[in-house]
Every structure is written in structure tokens, then in C-alpha cells.
């Protein structure tokens, strides 16, 4: 059975979301880059800015030299996440099988929904209309029988086009004239080898190579590249994971690389998570920490907790260790997120051999008192000085 996959894509998603909040930005060249340093790199570019020669990854000072009236915005992950959640809430009515790949990009598997939504092209058109009317965002959609071709199709659209439908059986002929750089899974080194040494520019040239030749370039990944060059991608649309997670994040008002201040923020995040864990009676078994630096580089660390606990003072040492394993650069930190998952729920079973530890008991009593005060007077009513 042929699949009907739609790759829904909002070009320059963070900028489009910022334009919804600030309509004066519409029609102007806009870019998103971390502030405070002229050496920081552009992370998102609007179509107008692209026409001025600005591209993603360009240094900020170069972009300003090219386009002096460029509107620069700082990254706002909270707003982007909120907008993406709203987008997901809208698309999930169309199919139960959808996969968010990254902010502004969603795969929808519409296989078998023909009687409900009609042809995939009609469903995509209806979806785009709904996104425009309800979220004030302009989406584009690539339709194909697999994820890879649908994603590539959504990237080949001209600014005035909304939908690219690659019909079943046309995948290879659609891919053939495209540049090899469009094909996923080709690294920088391999691309240079293809373009410079072998003069392979188009995908049809790559598809014409036999497996032995591909193996010389791509090694063990040759069969996958061979499939992709012929427009074949058996990867399923993975439904979004529904595992329960307790997470907290902070976007620093100013990027910071002072460990003391970063650890204070970390303690505050741990406190907030731990309080939610206690309310749920859930002991996390795993924890993760993400640091995003000024230059948008992210470092993620995860660990399994050695003991079951939901007390701040017992969780914090593990997070502190994770922090020091992730905070290994001199660059300033912009964003920090912690999350707990894989829960074990307390079952109220009493223990025969309680080992009372006076210090831990005292700390637990303090935390419980803080919880009571916060429940009555609000989150900011009281806190540890070290988390201030």
C-alpha cells in the first residue's frame, strides 16, 4: 500500500512567529541572531533578508555590512515553542500519526484518510488555509509517498507556491535533476569529494553509480544513499512520544558564563521540578540537562539517578555534576533546561529498616515548609538565597 506523507513546513518559523507578534516586521529583511556579540552567527533568515544575500550561519557583522537596515531579533525559544505547540494542536486533527521533526516542520501520515479528507493535495490545501486563518502563518507542504521526498518537495517550492505533490512512481524522476546537496545523509567531506573530485552535481549522476563505487565514497552507508538517490525512503512517521516528563527551563536575560549564577539558576530549576515531582508522588529514574550557548550550540547530558528521590537537595548534586560535564566551553550560556522522566510512583509501602538521617530529615522538613508557603503565597514568596 502506498503511503501519503505530507511534510508541512513554515519557512523561517521563528521569524514568522515574531512577525505575528510584531506585524511591523512584515515585508522587511529580518534575521535572528544572538545579541551582545558582533561575531555571533545568524540562526534564521527571512526571505527578504535572503534576497539581500544573507544566509543562515553567516557572521552578524558580515550580515550588517551587506544589509544595513536588517532587523535583528534575539532568539525567543519560549515563543517559538508556544507557537509550535499551537501548530501541532491544529494538525493533530488531521491524522493520529504525525511526527514533529524540528520547530516549524511536521510530517503527517495521511495514509487511509482519503474518505475523510479527500486527496492528500486537498487535505494539504485545507490545512494550509486553516493555519493561515487561525495562526496567521504561511505554510508550505510537500506531498509524496515517503518522508524524504516529501521533505525535499517542500524545500523546492518557489515563494508563491504552497504545495508540491510528487505523485506515486514519480519520486526518482523528481529527485533526478536536483543537486546532490539536497540529499540527506551526505556529509561535508563526502559532498566535497562528489562535487570536486568526481564532478557529480545532480542526484541522477549519483543514482547512476553502482554499489561498489558508492561504497568507496560512503562506506557502510552506501545502500542507504543508493536508496535515497532513487527516491526510496522506508522510514515510518514516528508518532510523537507520549512519555510523561517533568521539565523546567530558563532563558537568561543576559547570556552568562559565571558558574555561580548559572548554578543558582540550576538550583531554582531543580526546586521547581522537585516540587512538581512531590505533588505527583513520582520518583524520577532519569534526568537530563541541556545548555544552549550564545552561538546556538547545544550540549545535552543525561544520566540515570542512582537512588529514588524527589527532594531538591538530593537531586541537585546529580544535576550539578551533569552541569559541569555539559558546561565545558568558555562561551556564555543563553538557555538552560532540565527534565526528569522514567518515573517510579511511590506506593506508600512502609520500610522495616528506616535509617533516620537527622540532617536529611531536617532538610525535608524545611522543603515541606517552603512548599506550604509557596502554595499559599506564590512561587516567588520564599526561596533559598543560593537560588536567587
Amino acid at each position: 500500500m502506498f503511503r501519503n506523507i505530507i511534510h508541512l513546513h513554515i519557512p523561517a518559523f521563528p521569524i514568522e512567529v515574531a512577525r505575528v507578534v510584531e506585524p511591523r516586521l512584515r515585508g522587511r529583511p529580518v534575521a535572528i541572531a544572538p545579541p551582545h556579540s558582533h561575531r555571533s552567527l545568524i540562526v534564521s533568515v527571512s526571505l527578504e533578508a535572503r534576497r539581500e544575500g544573507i544566509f543562515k550561519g553567516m557572521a552578524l557583522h558580515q550580515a550588517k555590512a551587506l544589509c544595513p537596515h536588517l532587523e535583528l531579533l534575539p532568539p525567543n525559544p519560549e515563543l517559538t515553542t508556544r507557537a509550535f505547540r499551537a501548530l501541532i494542536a491544529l494538525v493533530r486533527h488531521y491524522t493520529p500519526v504525525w511526527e514533529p521533526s524540528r520547530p516549524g516542520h511536521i510530517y503527517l501520515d495521511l495514509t487511509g484518510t482519503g474518505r475523510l479528507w479527500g486527496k492528500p493535495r486537498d487535505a494539504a490545501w485545507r490545512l494550509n488555509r486553516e493555519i493561515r486563518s487561525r495562526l496567521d502563518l504561511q505554510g508550505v507542504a510537500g506531498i509524496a509517498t515517503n518522508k524524504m521526498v516529501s521533505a525535499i518537495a517542500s524545500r523546492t517550492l518557489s515563494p508563491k507556491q504552497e504545495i508540491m505533490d510528487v505523485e506515486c512512481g514519480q519520486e526518482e524522476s523528481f529527485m533526478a535533476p536536483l543537486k546532490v546537496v539536497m540529499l540527506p545523509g551526505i556529509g561535508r567531506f563526502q559532498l566535497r569529494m562528489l562535487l570536486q573530485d568526481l564532478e557529480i552535481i545532480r542526484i541522477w549522476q549519483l543514482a547512476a553509480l553502482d554499489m561498489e563505487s558508492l561504497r568507496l565514497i560512503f562506506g557502510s552507508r552506501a545502500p542507504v544513499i543508493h536508496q535515497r538517490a532513487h527516491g526510496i525512503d522506508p522510514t515510518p512517521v514516528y508518532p510523537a512520544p507520549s512519555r510523561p516528563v517533568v521539565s523546567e527551563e530558563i532563558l537568561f536575560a543576559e547570556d552568562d558564563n559565571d558558574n555561580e549564577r548559572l548554578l543558582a539558576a540550576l538550583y531554582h530549576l531543580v526546586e521547581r521540578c522537585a516540587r512538581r515531582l512531590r505533588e505527583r508522588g513520582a520518583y524520577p529514574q532519569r534526568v537530563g540537562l541541556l545548555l544552549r550557548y550564545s552561538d546556538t550550540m547545544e550540549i545535552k547530558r543525561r544520566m540515570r539517578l542512582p537512588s529514588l528521590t524527589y527532594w531538591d537537595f538530593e537531586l541537585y548534586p546529580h544535576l550539578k555534576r551533569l552541569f559541569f560535564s555539559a558546561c565545558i566551553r568558555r562561551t556564555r550560556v543563553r538557555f538552560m533546561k532540565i527534565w526528569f522522566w522514567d518515573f517510579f510512583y511511590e506506593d506508600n509501602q512502609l520500610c522495616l529498616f528506616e535509617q533516620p538521617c537527622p540532617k536529611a530529615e531536617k532538610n525535608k522538613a524545611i522543603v515541606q515548609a517552603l512548599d506550604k508557603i509557596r502554595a499559599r503565597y506564590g512561587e516567588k514568596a520564599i526561596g533559598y538565597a543560593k537560588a536567587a
Partner: protein
Amino acid sequence: MEIKTQIDKLLAVVSKAQSIVERRSNMPILSAILLVADDGGIAVSATDLQMAFQETIEAEVISKGAVAISGRKLYEILKESGSSRRENEEAWIHIKGEANNWVHISDGRAKFRIAGYPPEEFPSFVEPEDCILVRLDAPKINEMIKKTIYAVTLEEAGFKLSGLFAEKIQKPDQASNGDSHLLLRMVGTDGHRLSLIDKEFEGLESLELPKGVMIPKKGVMEISKLSADGDVIEMGFKQNSCIVKKDSATLAIRLLDTKFPDYHAVIPKEMSHRAEINRLELLHAMKKMLILASDRYRAVKMAFDDSGLTLVSTNPELGEAEERIEVRLPDGEAGWSEGGVELAFNARYFVDVLQVMESEDIQLGFIDNSRPCVITGEADEGFLGLIMPMRL
């Protein structure tokens, strides 16, 4: 090496040995069983480095030597060869070691050529010297293990409790003044429940067990298997090892060097309430309550009042279950206080303890809903089970 022996005899030994071999070890040799052919027959050995087993059986030794072969595969070959023979047919197995550690096995019909391991790599079986072995009643040992092992966990619940605690205790004789008699005590716990049993043995004073020892759960299971058939086993402790012998089989177990918690402190001395219940009635009722239990909702509420005991299991995701059981008050026991007594327990813990007990009627003793419930039975002499309640 080349031998010929009866399948049944070898299968009986290999089935004991193959439960010891390590299946997921990063040392491949530990998944093997060592067969050493000598004048006296063949010695079958297995080890996981924490425990070692060796047993000698009679065999026709054609040439001396040793082979090490996958325990699991040898067991499967012997099992299938034994079951495929005709009735009253005497089945023999022929094992021959070949060059490069290949082993040739034949049962007269099927032939196997299996890649073995270098026998010289097999860890040597070292039995502690001067270990005094005491002859103990095997059924009694088996009963002690059966009645305590259920409470032992493989998980670490705060303390390292993955073993059975054994010690010698002096118990005052109730019949005579000042006299006391020596008992062997075994205690198992997982931190939520505890099982304890005392038994008297002849010759116990010779057993070198000055302090208590912790025998790992896997080792206890093997002792139980050895003592399951037969009247007597020999047991001794030396150099952090426990040695158990029965006929030509020897089991050496490395003891756990962790401290067992102070279990005396958690055994209640006085009870506020006592109740006498038919064991099987309570067991079946608890099993019914378990039907609705899940990982998140394990508690069964036990409400005692003058008219009996009501068991209630509630699972918001599934529904509710309720059963009433008749309860008798022991002689001299005052009735239940106004409104009765309500406690909650994990039904699984009750099922485990009631299944191993033998008494027709059992006695439950409580203090309050924060201290353990004590379970005893007249026919279960020396046995005591403790279960901690759950918060209501």
C-alpha cells in the same frame, strides 16, 4: 579425553551444574561445564566465580583428559537424547575431546561436533582447607530455606539484602530453669517484609558460625536443590565461604560481606491486637484481591471488627473487590476497640508468606498501622513472618 556413561546419570548432574553457569558473563568460559575424566569416573564442574559446583559420577573412561563445553548445549543434548530413547532402553552417551577444543558427542543415533573452550582456562575449584563439615538434616534445611527465601530480594533496598542471613542462637529452654539450647536461625528480608525461622539440629555446636553470615540468594537456591532429595547434607563455613556436600557433590559458595540490618529491633515484643484466621481462607481471599492490584495500586485494606475481617482492594483504573472472612480472637484477647482496626498491606506479601506456611490456622498480631504485622502458626514451629503495612 574419551568417556562413555549413562545419559540419566550425566543429565542429573549437568542439570544441577547448568543452573550455576553464567549465561551473560563477559568471560565465555563461565558459560561452560568442565568434564574431567580420571580413574574414578568423570568430575563435572561449573562456576560463576561466586559459586562453584563439582560432582563425580561413574563412567567408562576410555582415555583421561578434560573438555569444557557450553553448559546449556550439553544439557539440551542430554535432555533430548534421554527423551528420544525407547522404553526400557538403556541410553549411553559417548563424549570425546578432539583437537582445537572440539568435542564430539554421540548418543548412538545423533552425532554432535561442538566447539568447546580450552579446559585449562576454566577457573580451578578451590575448597577451603580444614573446613569442619557438620551433618545436618536435609529436609529441615530445605524447609528453613523454603520458608525464608521468598522474602529475599535481588534488588538492593537501602541495605544490601540480596542474601539469606544465617546464624546460631542460644534460646532459653522454657521447660527447665536457666538451660538453653542451640538453634540455627535463617532470616530473609527485602526491607518491607521479613521471614525468620529457628530449627534445632544435632551437632550444631560443631558448626563454625561465630557471627552470622549472609549467603547469596543464588547459593541458597542451590543448597535447597541439593537438600531436596536425601536425608543428610554436610555443611561448613570457612574463610568467607560456605561448603555444602552431599554424596559426591560439593558446592562452594562465596558469602556476602555486607552487614545484615539489626532485625531484632523490628520484631515487636508486645502486640495490641491478635486474630486467628484460617490460612487457606485468607490465602484465597488475598489472591482474589490481587486480581485488581496493579503496580500503582497494590494495597489491600484489612478492616477488623467484631464480626470478622473485611478485605477491600481498590484500583481506580479497574474497580473494587471486597471479601469477608471469619476471624477468631485467641484466648484471653479482648475484643476489637470501638470502630475496629484498619490497616493496609501489599496483598502479594501476604500471599507469599501464606503459601509457604503449613498451619491450618494462623495468628496475626498488630500494634498499629505504622509497625509490622506478625504472622505465626502452630504447625510452623520456629517460624515468624513480618509484613510492614502501607499508608492508608
